[in-house]
């Protein structure tokens, strides 16, 4: 169970007066007979002495710069007015959004326009024709079911590589 909180209507006044330096006779008479204000007086008195001792320590050895140095440093930290950072970065943000779709689209257009040349180039590569013709035909000794499964797994593998490459590219563009 929590203890009841005892307060006094004059507590804040007593505390404020002690922080200002001392109690008026009326408040001192009250504090002598009030347990709450007696505690306030004891704690305030001790804390004020600790404060004075700390101020002596400050005068003896604190190393803080002059007000002028603080003012200069604060000025140099400030972002100059009139510069709108989001406005300046706008072209960069637009570029980031359109870079990937625009690149893919341009690639597809180039590929379509030069389809015959690309096909001729690919077919002229040694071994590629054999590989392409071999892809569709089942090796001897392999059952049709095993061949189907093999082709499906190969397709999935290729698809996952393409998805991973695309996702990595998108992430890097967004950075």
């Amino acid at each position: 169970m929590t203890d009841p909180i005892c307060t006094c209507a004059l507590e804040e006044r007593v505390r404020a007066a002690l922080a200002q330096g001392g109690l008026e006779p009326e408040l001192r008479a009250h504090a002598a007979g009030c347990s709450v204000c007696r505690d306030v007086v004891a704690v305030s008195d001790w804390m004020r002495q600790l404060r004075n001792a700390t101020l002596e320590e400050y005068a003896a050895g604190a190393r803080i710069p002059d007000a002028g140095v603080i003012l200069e440093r604060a000025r140099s930290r400030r972002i100059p007015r009139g510069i709108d950072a989001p406005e300046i970065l706008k072209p960069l943000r637009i570029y980031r959004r359109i870079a990937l779709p625009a690149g893919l689209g341009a690639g597809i257009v180039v590929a379509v326009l030069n389809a015959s040349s690309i096909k001729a180039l690919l077919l002229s590569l040694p071994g590629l024709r054999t590989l392409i013709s071999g892809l569709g035909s089942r090796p001897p000794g392999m059952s049709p079911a095993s061949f189907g499964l093999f082709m499906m797994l190969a397709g999935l593998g290729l698809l996952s590589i393409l998805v991973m490459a695309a996702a990595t590219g998108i992430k890097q563009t967004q950075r």
Partner: protein
Amino acid sequence: MGFVRQLNERADRIRDDAFEAFYARTAPALWGYARRVCGDSALADDIVQETFLRYLNNVRPEMPERPRRAFAYKIASRLLVDNIRRHKAVSLETVEEQAARDAPLSAHEALSPDLKRLFVSLKPRDRALLWLAYAEGYSHVEIAEIYGLRAASVKVMLFRLRRSFAARLRDSGYRPEERP
């Protein structure tokens, strides 16, 4: 154009003078707050400097002085929390106790090492609350604003802290000074 530039320069000079005066009044107490909460005078130096840099770039100059000072304490408190979290591996108590041992005897004889240890044994946030309330005289509402808490919560926390701290002071034989 020349007239406008002159006016701007004059306004800057007035602002700079006002800041210099504010700095002279606030920096020692703010350093004391940082020093007693984090327990390390070098870290307090850094925190005070950074506090005023952030203060200059964020304060509304038309605010009255007391809220502006509270704003500086708010920045310092956030920096203290961040630094204490970052340097949790180093025991603040050990640093503070070592400093208390090495320090020359204080002119304030009532602050015996035992009583200093009493304060150091508190959690950093409790030290901060006690300091703001009883060394600087901030109200519950102002402390709540500085720490981003509800005023009612601050009142409860301060009540418990004050009661236990006062009991420990009494047990140590501490008697408040008689003042006019």
